[in-house]
């Protein structure tokens, strides 16, 4: 964990960061003229809003992977489900302003739907959609998590299964007759709660919402990880069977964390969609989830600042690289991933400590991470295969 010195100063950093993100940047955007040197353009605010929602997603991945040891490759499924739930509301708010000037959303006219499918009807109401952002992913996570944890699927098997789940879901959403726009997804949004989505003020408000969500998620996670619950969580990550034999129902703990992080991811997705203006099934592909895992790994898992730094940093790098070196971006991302996994098991946040240790013990560069290092007192353990 973090050193004492860092811990004391870390609230200062949180406060400063929140100040910059929630007050300074939007303020500069709203109250300075376009020609002012410190002006933050509408485009940038929109871009930063996207980064912030990615940061929330990264936090949800970290809560699962960094703190509980569950590497889910399906986190983007929940992200997209949240996005789709709000997207349905946004779709219905277009009204007759679509390409075909009909009550039905464009893709339904295009695909020849006679009328709005019944499950779309309640999404005219914003609050229903907002509730659906929470309960739909939570329900999916609950069912899948219950099945997975009940049969004690863990480790890599859990990762592979979540990947299969996402894969199946994305195949389903790619189908035209699944009533969610198929390949093209939901797009062309116009209004949210009566406000024009293209106006800078609306975008700024969405940006602020995302910033607040990030702050709240951060506070929630840091509160959670400091309670006994958080300790059990980390104990499950490090030695699940010992926790189990100490009388804790590890499956329930894991299920709770899984559902919680699904909800967090879904909220991030719901705020992401109106800012980006589109949601389609490619968002839930397995590689998107893996990309979110990269952010966490780069920033430093098992910490709360790391994922935020990682998400914003990697995405800023991506924005730059896809423009400057479009062919090399994937090479860069892949290499970054290999290097971080091999040489920086604790990410950027853990880098200072790693350097300190390197100075003390120059012989060992790659240290096994906390979860793999056996406790010193433990007798030599026979190497076993997963049961």
């Amino acid at each position, binding site marked *: 964990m973090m050193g004492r010195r860092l811990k004391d100063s870390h609230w200062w950093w949180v406060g400063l960061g929140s100040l910059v993100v929630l007050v300074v940047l939007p303020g500069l955007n709203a109250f300075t003229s376009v020609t002012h040197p410190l002006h933050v353009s509408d485009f940038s605010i929109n871009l930063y809003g996207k980064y912030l929602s990615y940061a929330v997603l990264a936090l949800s991945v970290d809560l699962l992977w960094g703190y509980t040891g569950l590497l889910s490759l399906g986190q983007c499924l929940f992200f997209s489900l949240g996005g789709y739930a709000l997207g349905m509301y946004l779709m219905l708010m277009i009204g007759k302003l679509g390409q075909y000037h009909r009550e039905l959303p464009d893709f339904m006219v295009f695909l020849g739907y006679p009328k709005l499918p019944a499950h779309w009807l309640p999404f005219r109401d914003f609050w229903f959609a907002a509730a659906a952002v929470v309960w739909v992913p939570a329900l999916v996570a609950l069912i899948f998590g219950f099945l997975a944890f009940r049969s004690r699927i863990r480790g890599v098997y859990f990762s592979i299964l979540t990947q299969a789940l996402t894969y199946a879901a994305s195949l389903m959403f790619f189908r035209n007759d699944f009533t969610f726009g198929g390949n093209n997804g939901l797009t062309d949004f116009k209004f949210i709660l009566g406000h024009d989505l293209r106006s800078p003020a609306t975008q700024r408000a969405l940006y602020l919402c995302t910033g607040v969500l990030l702050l709240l998620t951060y506070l929630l996670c840091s509160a959670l990880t400091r309670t006994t619950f958080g300790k059990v969580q980390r104990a499950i990550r490090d030695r699940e069977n010992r926790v189990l034999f100490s009388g804790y129902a590890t499956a329930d703990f894991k299920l709770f964390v899984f559902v919680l992080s699904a909800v967090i991811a879904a909220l991030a997705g719901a705020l992401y969609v109106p800012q980006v203006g589109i949601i389609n099934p490619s968002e839930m592909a397995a590689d998107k989830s893996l990309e979110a895992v990269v952010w966490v790994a780069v920033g430093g898992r098992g910490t709360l600042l790391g994922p935020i730094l990682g998400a914003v940093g990697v995405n800023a790098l991506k924005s730059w690289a896809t423009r400057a070196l479009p062919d090399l971006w994937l090479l860069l991302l892949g290499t970054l991933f*290999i290097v971080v996994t091999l040489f920086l098991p604790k990410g950027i946040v853990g880098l200072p400590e790693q350097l300190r240790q390197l100075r003390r013990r120059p012989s060992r560069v790659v240290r096994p991470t906390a979860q793999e290092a056996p406790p010193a007192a433990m007798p030599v353990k026979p190497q076993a295969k997963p*049961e």
Partner: protein
Amino acid sequence: MILPSPQRTIVRNRPKGCQGAWVLAAHAPLRWGSLKVGLSWALAGVCCSSWLGAIAATAPSPAPAEKAVRQELSRAILAEDPERARLLNEIAHSGSTIAQEVLTAWTRDGVYLYDGSGAAKIPLLLEETPDSEGKARAIRIDTGRFLAGPDGHDLRLAAADLGAADTDMKLRQTVQRALDTLALADPNPETRRSAASKLGNSAKPQYLAVLEDRLAIESHGEVRRTLGEAIALLHLADTNPAVQLQAVRGLAAANALGAYDVLKRLAASTNASPEVTRAADLAARSIALHLDWVNFFGTVFRGLSLGSILLVVALGLAITFGLMNIINMAHGEMIAVGAYTTYLIQNLFGAGFAFSIALPLRLWGKPLAFGLHLPGLNASGGLYESYFLVALPLSFFTAAAAGLVLERTVVRFLYRRPLESLLATWGVSLVMQQLFRMVFGANNVQVSSPAWLQGNFTINDVMFGYNRVFVIVFAVLIVLGTWFMLAKTRRGLLIRAVMQNRDMAACLGVRADHVNLMTFAFGSGLAGLAGAFLSQIGNVGPGLGQSYIVDSFMTVVVGGVGSIVGTVYSAVGIGTTDQILQQALGSPVLGKIIVLGAIILFLQWKPGGLFPTRNRGLD
């Protein structure tokens, strides 16, 4: 299309390959790396040149039969009825391809008459591509040579200057009939068969005589069957109920799939006798049932072939993941390595392969770019077709080499961190995909199956593609080989020892490091082999591996991690179920979703897979 001259045929057969290879080796600007390869190809080219030369020398000279047919054709075009009808009838039974070409041209007004030196008219065909003045060389139908002028040079004529051989409605019918009969007399049984079924479906009773004539002399079993069906089909339209009834029964007994629609119509028709409609209805039902079975077995067969590819992929994974506990997300890219190797070898046997990459970076003021040009063998015929035999082992070794590099640079640091091996190898897979895109382009590349893998054979109407049969047989061989290697050889013993307990094996003097390396390379090589097979069945593109990786991980998990037998069962099971569901639901995606859902539920029931590895260890 029309190349009647024997000289020209030889010209076309002359091996270009050897010449091309020489030229490339001698003059082509060779960049780094290609020199050695180029020389060796040139050597190979010399070898093949002598071989192909021998083939060209023995090209057949025009058969006497062909000359006779040409003479008859020529006479038929100039003659009048009834002499013309007699000649056409004679030609129709010759089975000659030249006759087919000329007669087809005739029905399209493509036969011209040359009225040269006052002597008899000469029937001609004109070459396909006229020059800029609209003129082309003329081919004499009676000899097959170019029409020469008085000076001995080939004459160039325009279609507009020549009179076309006259045709009328009646003549066209006669010629068409001759053409159909010709097709029935074709030397290739497959052509005869398709001609017969075409005539059967024509619903024109006037073909009955032709078909019956042919049936009387036909000896090929399959063709006889199709002829019988065609005749019965035509009999269905007969006015005599007894004839109809007999035809219906005949079709039902033969399970003639092609007759299904006609029988259905007959069963529903009101002007046939009730007895006939009833029989037709029964026949249609029995054929429908037969069709269901045919579809079912076809699906099972496709499922088996898909399952065996999945098996080869998953077998590699069962070794790296099941035995070594490494999650190799780049396993899919090993498949792509194998597939692209096949593509490369195919190109090296053909026109060669070149690529160049320009990086958007500058180093010391120079733009960074590199490329490679590999000259091809320009082989054709049997040599070209055999490229796949070279590609198979090479795809294994290339992928194994890639695995070797991957193990040394990345995987070996992660033996105790399986979750992280997943992440790092995913990074590798991203890098490799991008490299494929840069070298081979972002689009799918075309890998053509060698002729001996194309085509199919039919057993009881179920179609078996040679490529799929080949895949199944080879998968069985690979599984047996892998099993033998793991269970019966010393190397296999060492592998199992290291996989069970790496530290203990190392203590006992096994070179665990080395064994790990070789095992990983072997697993990757198997993926490469799977890629070579996949290139024969599906598309080859940079994302090829991605579409298989989820499936193959699932296969290993369902089979029971660490169990080769389990992998075999689950691969075949998942492949077949997938295909059957796709067929039953009429949608590939829905079938896949259901299979994935079923797998998740299956793991509820058997968390350890079909064949769980028993173990007393806990953590």
